[in-house]
């Protein structure tokens, strides 16, 4: 697996507060990777570090084989970035934004960007401040894709958009990735979106990587099993148990044990990606470098 982004013990501190700490992860090339985590988990910080907008306080980050700090020109030329607030100059027209893209980027694809906007019925002579939120998001994405990036970083691209605009944006994204084979790292709160478009998942929590892997693999590895009530302390102590809910007579456990059949008396229940992600987010202590091979669960 080649990596578009590789971080080693990466850390970023604001004053005494660590926004990101001891973060080691790899973002696979050619895939759409979701960066998921609660507010303040360090998602935006990680994306800004990758873009070179922030300097790391500790550790290393390598983007497309280069350091964003030491080689900003090389990284900036090949990486597209859409910030969370999607700021654009409010008094620029759509054409002005495209012109700026042309002036500031060596590999600018003006025809492609224009076509993308025309397809969405976005008038080229309209000022940015008169565009709807969805249109501004489309314009930001068109600007980022117009760079012909090898890597696209999107910070909450679909938040604050209505469902239709969100779907249009994600469709645009998937089409672009399919056409050009670029790598995407997007942060999102919306697990449904992640499920629709992403192939790889990274869960950040409290500035650390809690879980990372291909979504299909993660789904295979995790099971929701329900059986007779067990001792909550025993469940909590078991490293394979991600989360446990104990009713009066039953226990429901989300376990990570690849290839294991549940013990007698236990049944599996359908597990959605949302359940999986939420289970990790609810249990910041859960998550491990590697799944434990043989875990003794229940009876």
């Amino acid at each position: 697996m080649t990596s578009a982004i590789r971080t080693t013990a990466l850390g970023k501190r604001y004053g005494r507060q660590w926004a990101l700490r001891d973060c080691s992860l790899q973002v696979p090339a050619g895939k759409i990777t979701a960066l998921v985590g609660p507010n303040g988990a360090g998602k935006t910080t990680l994306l800004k570090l990758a873009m070179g907008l922030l300097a790391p306080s500790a550790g290393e980050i390598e983007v497309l084989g280069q350091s964003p700090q030491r080689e900003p020109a090389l990284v900036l030329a090949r990486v597209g970035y859409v910030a969370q607030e999607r700021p654009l100059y409010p008094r620029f027209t759509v054409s002005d934004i495209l012109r700026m893209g042309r002036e500031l980027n060596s590999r600018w694809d003006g025809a492609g960007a224009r076509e993308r906007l025309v397809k969405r019925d976005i008038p080229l002579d309209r000022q940015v401040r008169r565009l709807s939120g969805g249109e501004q998001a489309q314009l930001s994405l068109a600007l980022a894709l117009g760079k012909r990036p090898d890597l696209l970083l999107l910070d909450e691209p679909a938040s604050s958009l209505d469902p239709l605009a969100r779907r249009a944006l994600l469709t645009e994204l998937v089409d672009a990735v399919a056409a050009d084979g670029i790598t995407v790292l997007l942060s999102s709160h919306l697990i449904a979106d992640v499920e629709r478009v992403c192939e790889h998942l990274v869960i950040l929590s409290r500035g650390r990587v809690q879980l990372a892997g291909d979504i299909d693999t993660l789904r295979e590895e995790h099971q929701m099993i329900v059986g007779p009530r067990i001792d909550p302390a025993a469940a909590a102590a078991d490293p394979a148990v991600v989360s446990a809910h104990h009713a009066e007579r039953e226990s429901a456990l989300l376990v990570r044990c690849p290839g294991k059949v549940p013990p007698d008396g236990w049944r599996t229940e359908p597990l959605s990606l949302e359940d999986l992600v939420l289970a990790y987010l609810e249990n910041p202590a859960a998550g491990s470098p590697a799944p434990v091979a043989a875990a003794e669960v229940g009876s």
Partner: protein
Amino acid sequence: MGWLTWRQHRAEAAAILTVLVALAVGVLLLTLAGSGMLATLSRGCAAGVCTTNFALFFQSGLFEGWTLVMVAVIAVPVVFGVFVGAPMIARELEHGTQFVAWSQGVTRRRWFVSRVGLVVLSSVVGAAILAAIAQGWFAVQRDLVNSNAVVGGFTFWDGFDIAPPVVIAYTLFALALGVAAGAALRRTVPAMALTLAAYIAVRVPLAQLARWRYLPPVTARLSDGGQLVSVASLPGPSDWQLTSYPPTYVDAAGHALNASSVNRLLEQCSGGSPSAAPTCPSALNGVYTLLQYQPALRFWLFQGIEAAIFLVLAVALLALAYRLVMRLR
């Protein structure tokens, strides 16, 4: 970057250009009117009606134009600092739009250097052209005022603040101050206020308190018991007499004397023209007067010194602004 800088600043560029052109045209018109007046006056003087004709000048409003032009040219640099320099970085940071440019294919260093460089360069060119036009006006006004023996005594030094070298340096300083204040405070209005306050705080004391000391003044021994010591050593009409440094009376023993009592005695001297020796009360015997001035020859040297001071400050402020911008997150 050039296009983006132009696109982001074209509205204020148009506004400032309009003001500058209006000022320049006004100054040119005053210059023309002044030249015409000068010609009329010199014809009148040749016919022997100098004094009556001179009333024309003061009634014409040209003399009032003096203050207007001086104030306008003196204000231009700080206007650039407050309205162009201060918002340049601050407005982007306020609206979060810096990330638009910073996530394109140009490095932050290039973004800063081209943006600040282009804006500063074009502002300085504008200010310099206005100052050059004001120079022509100043020469005519000086001749006009000096053609009246009563008012007289205007020198190059009175136009020190509007000469091109210092106007260029003031403009650079004000812009650098604005950019640095914007990068430090990250908010437009406070940055504008700080720019205005800091500019005045540096510019006024330097002009009032420091300028006349750039080189030690020449000391002339003006008179000795009311008798002129030497006409040659007196400040000429183009020298800068340091009036903020009044003539010092010294008695024979070398002690400073009370100025007003000596002045009363001096008023009793008969004759007063510099060329004829006056006769004065005997109490003035042994008393002599020191007068300090900066010679006319030092004008451009002083321009250079003051310009250099502001240029050094401007470079330091731009370096500070660059560091701040590179560290922004």
